[in-house]
């Protein structure tokens, strides 16, 4: 079938990130040893959006920092691959985390500037994509919270990163704005052919944005289950009330519950 062929072609693409047997231990200020992650293996395929759901403090954000190379694992290997050579990440955080002293334009330009590239077309394109073309000269303080988030989305994609890392991207955004932003983000990922990895504790967000959801255990974090989201690549808000969306969300929720019950029955897990 045609669908299978597409699926096979996609599967044959090299994985953008492959983590094998990743463990992360660190010492707290008090001198205690904490195991944040243990034996995590996963791969993110080219042009795929992978979501990881898990409770707070399970090491999800650490996982992203390891991929970004700003933190280092204590065990295992990470293989980073990029079709066009240099591996760079885009980052979306819990807060918009813009530079208050830079205009919208200069905030979006930041990643290009740091990697030493100049690409005015990309800046213009991304700013237009998030609908901020009339606010290029504005400072973040002059924008609403939702607009600041949109600028941070443009910043994450402007340098054509190998993978966009999203760390609970819309925490603290009101529900109406959040759904709009999620739709905008999924459209950007698809139109730009981006590869992305999302960590969140919001099951609906994970299902709406991703092609695959991995479920992590409480600390020490490890991957315990995988749910494939059977929705078309192109997502739109109406899908939130579709059967497939409910099915995927219910499956993720059931797996999360199972993990918690196991966790309660056996404190060692």
């Amino acid at each position, binding site marked *: 079938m045609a669908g299978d062929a597409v699926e096979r072609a996609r599967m044959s693409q090299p994985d953008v990130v492959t983590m094998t047997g990743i463990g992360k231990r660190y010492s707290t200020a008090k001198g205690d040893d904490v195991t944040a992650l243990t034996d995590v293996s996963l791969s993110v395929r080219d042009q795929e959006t992978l979501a990881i759901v898990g409770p707070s403090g399970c090491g999800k954000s650490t996982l992203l920092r390891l991929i*970004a190379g700003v933190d280092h694992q204590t065990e295992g290997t990470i293989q980073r691959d990029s079709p066009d050579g240099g591996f*760079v990440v885009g*980052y979306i*955080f819990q*807060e918009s985390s813009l*530079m*208050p002293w830079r205009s919208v334009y200069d905030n979006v330009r930041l990643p290009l500037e*740091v*990697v030493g590239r100049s690409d005015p077309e990309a800046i213009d394109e991304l700013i237009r994509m998030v609908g901020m073309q009339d606010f290029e000269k504005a400072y973040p*303080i002059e924008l609403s919270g939702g607009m600041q988030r949109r600028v941070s989305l443009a910043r994450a994609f402007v340098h054509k990163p190998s993978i966009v890392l999203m760390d609970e991207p819309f925490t603290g955004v009101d529900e109406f704005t959040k759904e709009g932003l999620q739709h905008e983000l999924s459209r950007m990922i698809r139109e730009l052919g981006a590869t992305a990895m999302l960590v969140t504790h919001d099951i609906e967000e994970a299902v709406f944005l991703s092609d695959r959801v991995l479920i992590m255990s409480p600390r020490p974090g490890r991957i315990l289950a995988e749910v494939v989201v059977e929705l078309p690549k192109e997502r739109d808000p109406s899908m939130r009330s579709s059967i497939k969306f409910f099915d995927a969300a219910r499956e993720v929720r059931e797996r999360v519950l199972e993990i918690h019950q196991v966790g309660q029955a056996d404190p060692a897990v």
Partner: protein
Amino acid sequence: MSRSLSRQAGYGLSVLSFLLGLVLWELMVGWFDVPSFLFPAPSAIFEVYFTADVDWLRHTLATLRTALTGFTIGVVFGFALAVVITLSHVLSRMIMPYVVALQVLPKVAIAPILYIMLGFTNTSRVILIVILTFFPIVINVSTGLATVDRNLVHLLQSLGAGRFSVFYKVRLPNSLPYFFDGLRIAVSGALVGAIVAEFVSSSEGLGFLILNSQYTFNTTAAFGAFVILTALGLALYGSVVFLGWRVMPWNERA
């Protein structure tokens, strides 16, 4: 102040209250026939600029020069030290005890002794002001350099930015509002330092003038100096605030 008061009405009320105070002051001194060496009337203070045998401009400029020289050196030195403390944990640990110990000492207390150490020169006066202005800058700037958005640091590091780049692109601009907060404190401290230094030893300046007025019971001349000092303080503080607005149009506290 009532919530419904408009901005203009608010300012108007402040000006009116100030003028009313001046009129009451003038009338009270007249009614009770208060001698001017006890409490001079506003009109007498106004007159003293023309009648007293005092070179007002020379004394004002002397105080201003001392204050601004000390202020400039203190700010530059304070900023440099804050950068050093931020960049080196080792130096930070070594320097901070001195900073903290000197910070809690009321610094004007050392003024008389500074003259013994450094001689009865303008250098001693400037040094006192340097010490007074230096601390708010060190404390504020080092706070501003340190309390950055961790996400921004991670973002830059993930793109291969080094320590210098993070410092230049994130820490430095982040410290600007803190720096200007420090400047506001320092600029007031600079005037205090100049006056105290002139009290202890000097032959010119507004501090000298005030002390001299005490010896000669010329309270009116001292009040003349107070008015000039108030105007200087307002002008210096206002300049810092204005500069802050110009340099940081993006700042929420502006």
